[in-house]
């Protein structure tokens, strides 16, 4: 597994844990109310699990297993995908501050979109027939 996939997949595991923690607190609050502001974690629960866990894991595995080039950089412009990893996680972390600074949600979402575009640009040519 390439180093970049290691970082993407391990970061996705961390987001899985954070997302499950938020979800567990909310679910427990539904059962036995102990601290109502726990509900403010709901947007983070979704952000961590949908973007941080599912999408980031898919990116990490895709970077690892989609076809490589036989000449030049085998996994294409890797720097773009590193930048994508950094911006995606910066975006998720920014969105995590939305409760205190609502504008951070917009900032985070913009960073996530840019991360997504960089990942697509970095991976586009690897979606190809065998042997090219």
């Amino acid at each position, binding site marked *: *597994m*390439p*180093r970049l*996939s*290691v970082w993407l*997949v*391990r970061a996705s*595991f961390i987001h*899985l*844990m954070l997302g*499950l*923690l938020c*979800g*567990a*607190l909310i*679910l*427990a609050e*539904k*059962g*036995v109310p102990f601290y109502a502001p726990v509900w403010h974690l709901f947007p983070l629960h979704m952000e961590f*699990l949908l973007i941080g*866990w*599912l999408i980031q*894991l898919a990116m990490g595995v895709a970077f690892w297993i989609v076809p490589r080039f036989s000449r030049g950089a085998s996994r294409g412009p890797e720097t773009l995908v590193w930048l994508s990893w950094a911006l995606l996680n910066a975006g998720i972390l920014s969105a995590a501050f939305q409760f205190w600074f609502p504008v951070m949600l917009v900032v985070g979402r913009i960073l996530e979109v840019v991360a997504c575009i960089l990942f697509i640009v970095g991976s586009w040519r690897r979606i190809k027939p065998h042997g090219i």
Partner: protein
Amino acid sequence: MPLLTRVFIKTGMLCLALALTLGVLLALGITNGLFPAYIHLLVFGWLTQLIFGVIYWMFPKYSTEKPRGSEALGWWTYALLNIGLFMRAVAEPIQATRPNSFSAWALVVSAVLQFLSGALFTVNSWQRVREK
């Protein structure tokens, strides 16, 4: 494909079928607090469970002696995920319509079990995510 992966994937498929059945009920206007169960059966019971199974099967080997890490931890992950999810799917609609102390505490236990399943998965898989 190892037994644990087969069990993960087949249980995931059952969760998918159950979730889509709940989707029909929701479309018919029978809500009764079913929506959270619907979403979590899809995203946790199907998608995440499928991912857990495939990662256990296909990620780089942990060692020659224990290629998939701890099989026991894998089975605990499976059990906690499904017991937690099942408890939630039963208790949450009850708590939404006829709340009682049993459904309330079932949600708390379910929250703990689902979080622990993610933690055990992460512990068991972390070392398998590494550079070649």
